[in-house]
């Protein structure tokens, strides 16, 4: 009788542990997927903003045609990609970020353009989108880290292998973001 009760208690505890480990894994995977969709939303937003930017700066003729073409080309590449390969998508996105930076850098030389209402608004929107891409990538990587930890650590690793949870890959962070932050006291 007592042995029966003990066995029953142990079984119940095991079931609870199993279920909570499983739910933890599901939650971890959902976080990873959610944070990817955050990135995706921002990439789409940027794709929508770029035609407006091109339209606005085109009038300022000294822009090198090749820079603008490169931006448009990269944008179209992102629009047409399926988005399945996260690493590849982010690599294209980083190139696009760099090209946009060079557009902004050139704009510094044009006071008229900098004073343009439409341009200022676009600039804030694009800066916002770029920052959100960086922050969602950070969130993605931290979600991946905690998900992978769950998959690899005991006892959730047993549950993970039964249900075929696979560890996710980190997104590469571009070199300049890894570098030590610059000191800026201006403004």
């Amino acid at each position, binding site marked *: 009788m007592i042995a029966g009760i003990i066995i029953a208690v142990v079984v119940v505890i095991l079931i609870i542990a199993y279920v909570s480990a499983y739910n933890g894994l599901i939650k971890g995977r959902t976080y990873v997927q959610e944070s990817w969709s955050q990135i995706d939303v921002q990439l789409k937003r940027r794709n929508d903003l770029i035609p407006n930017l091109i339209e606005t700066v085109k009038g300022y003729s000294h822009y090198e045609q090749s820079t603008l073409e490169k931006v448009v080309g990269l944008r179209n590449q992102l629009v047409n990609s399926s988005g399945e390969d996260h690493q590849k998508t982010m690599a294209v996105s980083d190139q696009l970020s760099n090209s946009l930076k060079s557009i902004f850098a050139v704009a510094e030389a044009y006071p008229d353009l900098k004073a343009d209402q439409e341009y200022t608004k676009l600039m*804030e929107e694009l*800066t916002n989108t770029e920052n959100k891409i960086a922050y969602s990538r950070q969130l993605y990587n931290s979600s991946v880290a905690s998900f992978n930890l769950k998959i690899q650590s005991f006892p959730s690793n047993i549950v993970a292998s039964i249900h075929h949870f696979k560890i996710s890959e980190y997104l590469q962070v571009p070199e300049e973001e890894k570098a030590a*932050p610059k000191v800026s006291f*201006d403004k």
Partner: protein
Amino acid sequence: MLFEQIARNKRRTIYVLTGFVILVLAIGAAIGYVFFDSYIAGLVLALVFAGVYAAIMIGNSTNIVMAMNHGHEITKAEQAPELWHIVEDMALVARVPMPRVFIIDDPSPNAFATGNNPQHAAVAATSGILERLNREELEGVMGHEMTHVRNYDIRLQTIALALAAAITGMVNLAGNFFWWGGGSRRRSSDSEGGNILQIVMLIVSILLVILGPIAATMAQMALSRNREYLADAGSVELTRNPQGLISALQKISTSEPMKEADPSSAALYISDPMKKKKSLTHLFDTHPPMEERIERLRKM
């Protein structure tokens, strides 16, 4: 570390609330004894008062605190694009819902967060901070505030603030009693019963005046200055950029005091808005010394 901090904050919130209820009950009993010759009546009155007060504060703390500090809410990104977008970024990476955003029209740079929990939180920034800080610096400041939100610092701080405000109100009331009682004593100097009543009232008034500062000290101790260091560290965890917060803190600490800030809300701000002279012992400071905060950030 983070979860310990959250648990500690929830525990301390209960301590602070318990202390507050005991204080209110004691004062209620004293008032009940003086006016109705019955402790029970005073206790019941105090309970009702405390209940209504707590309900108002918990249901409406954000609006009350924001009104005390003259903050006005912005509801669209267009009203302050940079601030709005930065708050969005910090909420995103801290994985908390977007808080309400307020702006205080004051040229001195400062900011704070308030609310009951991460789902009902608010951040406020002065117009001065928006003008004087660049994007990286503002990110550092908002990262600090978002850490307060995520750590449940805001609830404890808001409740301690409410406590301090209530105590201040009671002390003022006691001060009025004192003068009012003084006037009636002169009129009824021949009545002996009246004299006893007035003496008791005097004692209660004096007690309230003494208890007020003690309770305020208690609230300050609950607001351990350590949480400012933790929020600075949390900000760097979110932004990965200690330099932004360092230069923000330097700009904030070298600026003039705020005009619109409410003194009892001082502990909420990222940096003491009153810029009062630091005491030698730092025992009653609301914030840790700025040099020490910057030093710790540099070591990250």
